[in-house]
C-alpha cells in the first residue's frame, strides 16, 4: 500500500495542482482502553508487564497507569508466577523464581481491582520460540534521496543486520534497538561531554518463511541521518532480536500497515488490531497492546567513523551569543539562557554574554555519566 501511495503522489505531481494542509479532526470520543505492554524473554532478569490507559488523539501526556492489579503468568506445566507492582502500573517478575524457557507456553492473567471496573483479563497461551544469535550488524555510508522539490539529498549511515537460523525454527523476527551516542559542547564548561540514549520507534519485523533459507541479509534496521549529531563523536547501537510466533508477527504487521498512514483513498481502511489479551467478563471490551513471549539475542556495535557533513547543533548560528549590558536584570536566567562570560567593561558597567542553556550544559539533552559499556577501546 505504501507504494500505491507513492504512485498516487507521483500521478498527482504530474498534474501539479494538489495541495496538502494540516487537518485536525473533531471527534467526540473519550474512550479509555486498557493498554497491555508485556514482554517476557528467556534471558535472566526481571520481565515487565505495563498496564495503562490509552490517551486521546493529539495529547502527549504521560499515560495513566492502571494501579493495584493482580498480575500473574502461568505456564503449560501449571506453574503460576506472581508479579509485583514496583512503580505504579508496572508489574515485574521475580528474577530469582522466573525465567522464560524456550518451548514453554505462557499465559498472562490480569485482575483489575478497581471499584468501577473489576474485570479479569487473560491472554492466549503463547509458545516461546527459539531465536538464533545475530550474525552481524554493520553499516554503510549511503546517500538517500528523499522528499520532493529542491531539497538536497541526504548523506548518512545505514545500519544493517544479518542473521540466520540453521535449524529453521525461527521464521518470524522482530528487532528493537537502543542507540547511544556521545556529544561534546564546543565551549569550556563543566558539563561538556554527555551521552544520549534513544529507543527505536519503528516496527522492525521480517518473515523468512517466503525465502528458501532461514537467512536474513542486509536487513535495513536503522538509517542515521547526518542531520542529527549521532555520528559526530562516537555512536553505539544495541540490537535485541526476538523470535515471534506467526500470530504475533501478523499483529505487528497489521499495526505496521495501519500505523504509518491511514485515511487516504488507497490506504488500508483502519480498524482495531485485536490484542492477544481478552477481557473475560465483557467480550466487547477492546484491549490494546500485546503480551509478547519471545526468546532474545542481542548484539552491540560501535561506530566512530568519520562522516562528512554531520550537522553540528552547537554552531554560533544556533548558539547565538547575546549581550546584555549592565543594569537590567536578565530575564529567564537559568532557564533559557546561560551566562557564559561575565566581564565587567567600562562603560556601562558590566556586560553579560549569554547563550541558550543547551549550548552550555550538555545535561539538558543527555547525561554526563558515561554508560558502563562506553570504554575507550571500542
Amino acid at each position, binding site marked *: 500500500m505504501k507504494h500505491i501511495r507513492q504512485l498516487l503522489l507521483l500521478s498527482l505531481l504530474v498534474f501539479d495542482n494538489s495541495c496538502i494542509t494540516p487537518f485536525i479532526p473533531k471527534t467526540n470520543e473519550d474512550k479509555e482502553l486498557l493498554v497491555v505492554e508485556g514482554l517476557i524473554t528467556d534471558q535472566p532478569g526481571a520481565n515487565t508487564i505495563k498496564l495503562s490507559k490509552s490517551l486521546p488523539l493529539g495529547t502527549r501526556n504521560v499515560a495513566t497507569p492502571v494501579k493495584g492489579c493482580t498480575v500473574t503468568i502461568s505456564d503449560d506445566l501449571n506453574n503460576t508466577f506472581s508479579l509485583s507492582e514496583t512503580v505504579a502500573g508496572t508489574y515485574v517478575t521475580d528474577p530469582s523464581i522466573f525465567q522464560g524457557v524456550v518451548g514453554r507456553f505462557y499465559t498472562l492473567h490480569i485482575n483489575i481491582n478497581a471499584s468501577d471496573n473489576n474485570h479479569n483479563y487473560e491472554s492466549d497461551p503463547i509458545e516461546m520460540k527459539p531465536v538464533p544469535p545475530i550474525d552481524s550488524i554493520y553499516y554503510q555510508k549511503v546517500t538517500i534521496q528523499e522528499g520532493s522539490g529542491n531539497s538536497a539529498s541526504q548523506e548518512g549511515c545505514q545500519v544493517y543486520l544479518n542473521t540466520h537460523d540453521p535449524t529453521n525454527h525461527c521464521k518470524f523476527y522482530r528487532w528493537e534497538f537502543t542507540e547511544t551516542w556521545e556529544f561534546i559542547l564546543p565551549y569550556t564548561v563543566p558539563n561538556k561531554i554527555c551521552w544520549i540514549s534513544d529507543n527505536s*520507534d519503528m516496527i522492525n519485523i521480517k518473515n523468512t518463511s517466503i525465502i528458501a533459507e532461514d537467512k536474513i541479509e542486509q536487513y535495513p534496521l536503522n538509517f542515521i541521518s547526518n542531520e542529527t549529531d549521532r555520528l559526530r563523536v562516537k555512536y553505539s547501537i544495541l540490537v535485541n532480536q526476538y523470535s515471534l510466533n506467526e500470530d504475533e508477527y501478523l499483529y505487528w504487521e497489521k499495526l505496521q500497515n495501519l500505523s504509518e498512514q491511514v*485515511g487516504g483513498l*488507497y490506504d488500508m481502511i483502519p480498524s482495531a488490531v485485536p490484542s492477544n489479551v481478552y477481557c473475560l467478563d465483557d467480550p466487547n471490551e477492546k484491549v490494546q497492546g500485546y503480551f509478547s513471549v519471545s526468546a532474545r539475542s542481542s548484539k552491540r556495535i560501535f561506530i566512530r567513523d568519520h562522516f562528512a557533513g554531520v550537522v553540528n547543533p552547537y554552531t554560533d548560528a544556533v548558539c547565538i551569543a547575546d549581550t546584555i549590558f549592565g543594569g537590567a536584570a536578565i530575564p529567564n536566567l537559568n532557564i533559557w539562557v546561560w551566562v557564559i562570560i561575565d566581564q565587567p567593561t567600562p562603560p556601562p558597567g558590566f556586560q553579560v554574554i549569554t547563550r541558550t542553556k543547551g549550548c552550555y550544559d550538555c545535561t539538558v539533552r543527555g547525561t554526563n555519566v558515561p554508560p558502563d559499556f562506553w570504554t575507550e577501546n571500542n
Partner: protein
Amino acid sequence: MFMKLKIHILILLFFLSINLGAQEKYGISSQYKDISFTDFVKKVESILPVKFYYIDDWVKDLKLGDYPDCTTLQCVMDNLLRGTSLYYYIDEFGNVVITNNYAVKVSNTGVEKNNKFLPPSDFSGSAENQHLAGNASVEIGNPAEKNNPGNVTLSGYITNKDTKEAVSGVTVFIKKLSIGTISNEYGYYTMTVPRGIHVVQFSFIGMREKTINLNLNGAGEMNVEMNSVLIPLKETVVSAQKSVTLQRFEVGAEKINITSFKLLPTSMGESDIIKSVLLIPGVQSVGEGSAGFNVRGGSADQNLILLYGAPIYNSSHFFGFFSAVNSDIIKDVTLYKGGIPSRYGGRISSVLDIGTKEGNRNEFAGSAGISPITAHVSLEGPIIKDTLTYILTARTTYSNWIFGLINNPELHNSRASFYDLNGKITYDLNKNNKIDFSAYTSHDSFRFNSDTVYSYNNNIFVLKWRHFFTSRFFSSLSINNSSYNYNISSQAIPNEAFVLSHKVNSTGFKADFNWFLGRNEINFGLDLTRYDVLPGSYLPNNDSSLVIPRTIEKERAWEGALYVEDKFILTDFLSVNVGMRMSSYYSFGPQSVMIYNPDYSKSTSTITDTLNFKSGGVTSKYAGLEPRVSLNFRISDKNSFKINYNRTRQYLHLLSNSTSIAPTDTWKLCDYYLKPQIGDQVAIGFYELLFKNNFEASAELYYKTIKNMVDFKGGTNLIMDDNIEKDIVNVKGKAYGLELVLKKTEGKIRYSIGYTYSRTFIKSLGTFSDEIINSGKWFPANFDKPNDLVVTFNYLFSRRISFSSNYTYSTGRPITYPIATYDISDKLLVTYSDRNEYRIPDYSRLDLSLKVSGNLKSHKIAHPNWTFSIYNLLGRENVYSIYFKNQGEFVNGYKLSVFGRAIPSVTFSFDF
C-alpha cells in the same frame, strides 16, 4: 373509457369506409374568428346540411382562427385541426365525423379478398427515395390491404447515412397515437400500428431528426437512414430522450450518446465516459479521480463494464483519473442502475454497456487530437466498400517526457505512462450474416524513483457473428476473452529481487436470440464463462535472488447461465418485461482447502485439516434463479409509472481493503468458503413530460439488499494471501434512495437538475471478535454520500459554438478517524473510532467548457475542434483525502486536495 371509445371509432370507420363516393364541397364564408368549436358547429349546422359527430372533451380548447382564404368547410377544418391529434371525415351524407388519433381512411376500390399477399419487404420504401417538403413520404404494405381491419406491424432497420452503422436507441414515435419504440442494438425496431397515414418521427441525440409521412397499408418494413449532426443543435434532437424515458421498461436505465458526453466539461482535456456516468443520479465515487464507481449502494466490483460485450476488469488509467476506454471508439453507453435485462449477468449492481463504433462504410475518415496529457488518433474506413470495414483508435500519454523535465532527482527517474488501442473489423458476408472481430488492449506502467516497477494490462478479444434468420428473428453468437494482470517488480535488494503477479482471465461464449413476435419481443440465450485466476505469484527476479518461487494455487471455475425474457405490450396502458436468468457456478480443483476449528476465528493457528481436491474435482457449486420483472404503466401520453424488481448474482469478488479500489487489488472467485454475492432491488419510477413536452421530470425510488459481501479483519494484507478466507469478514448491505431529475431538453438553452438522497449501510455478520465491525451494527459504507446534486447547463450559441457547464455537490464520504493513542515500547500506536463514524467535508465543484468547431462544411477536408475547459472554476479546495501520519511524537492529520485550484485546459482535435 379510453378503450371503449376506440372501439366505437373503429366500428364507425368500417361503417364509413363502405360508404364511398365523392365528397361535396360545402361553401362557407369565414366569419367565425375566435368563436369556440361548439359554437362554430351550431352555426354551420344551421346553414349547411351537415351534422357533426365528436366528443366535447376533444374540442373544448379549440377556437377558430382567421382563415381569409377559406371558402369551404373542408378548408376551415383542415386549418383548424392542423397540429392537433384530431382528424375529420365528411361522408357523402354530410356527416362530419371528428376522430382522435385515428384518421378515417377511404378506399376507392373494394377490398379484393382473395388477393395474394406480397411479401412485406417488396413494399419497403427507403425514406431517401421520396422527398416531400423536407420530410419523406412513404407507402408501406400492399395497398390492397389498406381497408383490412386491425393493426399491423411496422419494422425496419435504422442506419447512419454516413457510416452505414446500425443506430441503436433511436426513438420511433408517432405523436398522434402516442405510441413508439426504441431501436435495438442492431438498429432494428418494430411496432404495432393501425393502418393509415401517420407521421413517424425518428429521433436520437446527435442525429438529425427525421419525420416520415407514412401511408401504412399493411405490415411492412421501413428502413431509415439518419444523418448525424456535428453538434446537436436542432431542437428536435433531444425529444428522443423524453419518449425514451416513457417507453423504456427499466427503472433506472440511462443512455449517453457520445456527442452529448463530448459536450461536457473535461478535467484534463479528455472526454471521459466514467466521469459522464458519474453525473447520472445514483452513481457516485469515493472521491474525484478515484478508480471505480458505485451505483445505488453497490461496491465498485459490482459493475459489469462491457466493451464489445466482454467484461473489463480494470476500467481506469492513472488511478481513475482517466477511463481505460478511449472515447474515440465509443458510440454510446447504456447504464442500467436497476431493471437489468436478463441477458446481462455476473455482476449485481449495474451494467455499463459501452457501444462501440464500426468503421465508416463509405470512405476513409479519421480524427486526431492532443490534450495536456494525452494524444489520440483514430482511423476508419472501408476495405471493401459497404462490406468490410475497419476502425482503429489509439491513445497515449506523453507524461514520461514531462517527468524527464522535472528538476527533482526523484521524479526525474520516475515514470508513469499509459496507452490503449482499440480495433474492430466488420464484415458483412451477405444481407443476413455479419461477422466482426474486435480487440482492445490497455497498458499502464509506473516506476517510482527507479525502484519498484508497476505495470498492468487489460486485453480483450471478441469474435461475433450476427445472423438474421428473418427480419424479425436474429441471433448473435460470440466468443470473447478478457484478461487483466498486474506485475510489481523490484531489484532494489539483490537477494530479495522479486516479481509479484496477479492475473484474471475469462473466456466466454454467448448466444443471444432476439425474436419479435407480434406484440412480444422475446430474448433468450445462454452465457458460458470459464474463469482462470492466478491469485498471486511471487518469483525471484534475478539469479542472485533467494526468493522462494511461490505461487498461490490457481482458481478455476465455470459459470453458466440460461435466460429468457419477454417484453410485451399487454394493453396500450401496460407493458411488461418478464425475464428469468438461471445461473450456476462450479469451481474445481486441483485445490487444497483448509479446514478450521469452528470454535475459533479462522487463522493459521486454527487450521485443523486440509481437504485436497483433485484436478477436476468440484470444490464448490452454487446456482440460483435471477428473476427480473418490469411493469410500465402509461398513465397518459405525458406520464408513466414503472415498477421493477430484479435479483442478480455475482460469483467474482474484488478483494480491496482500501477506500477506493486500486489497480493492485486482486480478483477472487467464489470457492469453498466464499459465497456468491446476491443483490435484490425493487425500484419504482414516475416520469412526466411538462410544459409542452419541453421538460422531463422523473422520480425514482429504490431499495436494495446485498448478501455475501466481503470485508476484512483489521490491518490485513491481501496480497499473496494463501487462505484469504481466514481474513474475510462476511458482511451484508442495504441501500435505499430517491433520485429526482428535471431536464429541459429542447431549445438553445438546455439544463438538467438531478438530486439524489441515498444511503448505503453495511453490517458485519461474524461471530468472533475480530469478525465484528462496529459491534455488529449497521454502519455507513465507504461511498455513503446522502446528498448529491448535479446541475448541467448547455447553451448552444450556434452550430459552431457551444458552451456547457456543470456543478456537483455531495456530502463528504465517511471516514474512520484515529481517536486515541498509546505507547508500546516507545512506539506510538493508534486506536480508531467506529468504522466510518465521521465524514470528510462536503464536495462541490463547478466546471465550464466552450467548444468551437472551426468549420462545419461537410466537404471540407478537415474539421478542427477546439475545446477550452476550466475545471473547478471556483478553485475550491475539495478534500480528496484526509489521512493521518504517525510521526513518532504525534499522529498528525492532513488534508489533500488534488485539484485545489481552477485548472484550465485546451484540447485540439480535427476530423478528416
